[in-house]
């Protein structure tokens, strides 16, 4: 299998999810921010400010194109127009990385704008692998597939998440994007052991790590229910899990995701510095 941990064109330092309101400050004083991730869907227009900003940023920063609307886990066929838009963006931008989610968001031409879960079974595995083959073929570059945050389980599931992700990577040659906050959220919600999850994960396939904030709630039985909100700081237990991840799997390009209630840029810079502080000593070893 391809070793994504050494082949990534993203630097193994901190990046942030790009928000247009940070354009000026980010360029003036990036601090520890060395690369950027964009949501592909926000850059699918024909021109105007979004593409002009992206063109300017790409001169300074390696860019990761992160799709949120492809619906790789969908039961139906992929949206050919959407694949074409992704290809158009990637051809134009030549990003350092291209990633999507193990989730679905479109059903019968209805786009639901959320990352919805799927059962882990031989049947869904074949479908997801076929979809990834199709995307990688059409876009003409390898993809990283991200582990999801999940809130419920499927009675139909017959294999665990890591086995499922690893098998997909083996079949398609794609890499993986390890979202450590998603690991924490899913492990809490599903009562899995997060340390065991991290230690079992195939780190050689990981081309990028995500860190983000979540909200805390409870289900109707009083069990903890964490919600992947991307609306606040990364919490301490997730930082601890990230620290463990880097010790176990080595340094990786690490993204701070903050998509809702977006803070002032200096706050993101601090979060990026915190990731850097964990990466740097391991990098130096």
């Amino acid at each position, binding site marked *: 299998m391809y070793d994504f941990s050494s082949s990534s064109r993203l630097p193994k330092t901190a990046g942030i999810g790009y928000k247009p309101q940070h354009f000026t400050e980010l360029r003036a004083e990036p601090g520890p921010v060395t690369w950027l991730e964009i949501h592909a869907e926000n850059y699918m227009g*024909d021109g*105007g*400010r979004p593409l002009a900003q992206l063109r300017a940023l790409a001169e300074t920063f390696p860019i990761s194109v992160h799709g949120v609307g492809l619906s790789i886990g969908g039961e139906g066929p992929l949206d050919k127009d*959407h694949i074409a838009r992704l290809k158009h963006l990637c051809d134009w931008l030549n990003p350092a990385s291209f990633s999507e989610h193990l989730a679905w968001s479109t059903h019968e031409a209805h786009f*639901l704008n959320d990352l*919805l879960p799927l059962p882990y079974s031989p049947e869904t595995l074949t479908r997801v692998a076929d979809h990834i083959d199709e995307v990688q073929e059409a876009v003409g570059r390898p993809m990283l597939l991200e582990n999801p945050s999940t809130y419920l*389980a499927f009675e139909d599931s017959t294999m665990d998440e890591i086995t499922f992700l690893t098998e997909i990577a083996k079949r398609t040659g794609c890499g993986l994007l390890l979202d450590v906050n998603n690991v924490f959220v899913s492990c809490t919600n599903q009562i899995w052991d997060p340390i065991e999850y991290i230690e079992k994960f195939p780190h050689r396939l990981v081309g990028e790590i995500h860190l983000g904030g979540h909200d805390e709630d409870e289900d109707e039985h009083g069990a903890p229910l964490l919600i992947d909100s991307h609306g606040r700081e990364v919490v301490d237990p997730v930082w601890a899990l990230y620290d463990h991840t880097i010790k176990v799997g080595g340094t990786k390009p690490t993204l701070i995701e903050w998509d809702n209630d977006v803070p002032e840029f200096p706050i993101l810079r601090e979060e990026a510095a915190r990731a850097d502080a964990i990466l740097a000593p391991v990098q130096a070893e």
Partner: protein
Amino acid sequence: MGQTDFTAALLDPEKPVPEGLVDPQGRPAGKRFDVYRNNVTSSLIAALETGFPVLQKLLGESSFKTLATLFLRAHPPTSGALQRYGDAMPGFLAGFKPLASLPYLADIARLELAIRTSYHAADHHPLDPAGLDPEAMMALTPRLAPATHILTSPYPIYSIWRMNMVAGAPKPAPVSEDVLITRVNFDPTPHLLPPGGRQFAEALDGCTPIAAAIEAAMIAAPRADIAGLLTLFLSSQALTLPTEKVQ
């Protein structure tokens, strides 16, 4: 349990949670399914709020939320790119009985959609008449720039838009209004089209000289202020020459 049932239950809170979805103890996933329901609904409402700020002001936050919720169930997005989400809103409003007493809302929705479309439209080289003598200028055959839109309405949609977006703007008078939307650099701006303006714009198809478009304007509005019209279209960068493309 397939994605058809899952989707139907996501969009309809009256439907029961599909079978086969469970918590870690194997109990039916009630509130856990609602997380997905809330994500879908609230993210699409947020997209509509961003896309229709004037509609939201006109209706108030909570009525807009009700409208948005009904709209998204009837018209979920059809594309993973949400730039165009809401293009069914004018039609939805036109047939929406509870708001029939506010018939201008559909045209306000059209105006807001046009502003959004203009924001994402291709860049253009604006027609620049500097250095041209008047005769050469009259012979040019520009077309509307990709970011330029023309809207007509039997309602004062420009004035309604302006009253809600510009502090101190006057109250609308009950007149029909035509609107020109243009983009200088990155921010679309609506302008009120003076008499003859719509006919002038509609004539400019890339092979009609400006002189002929002026004639069309004067036939429609014999007292049209032609100098003012030309100034508006040139200063707002509404026009481009057919051969020029920006990469």
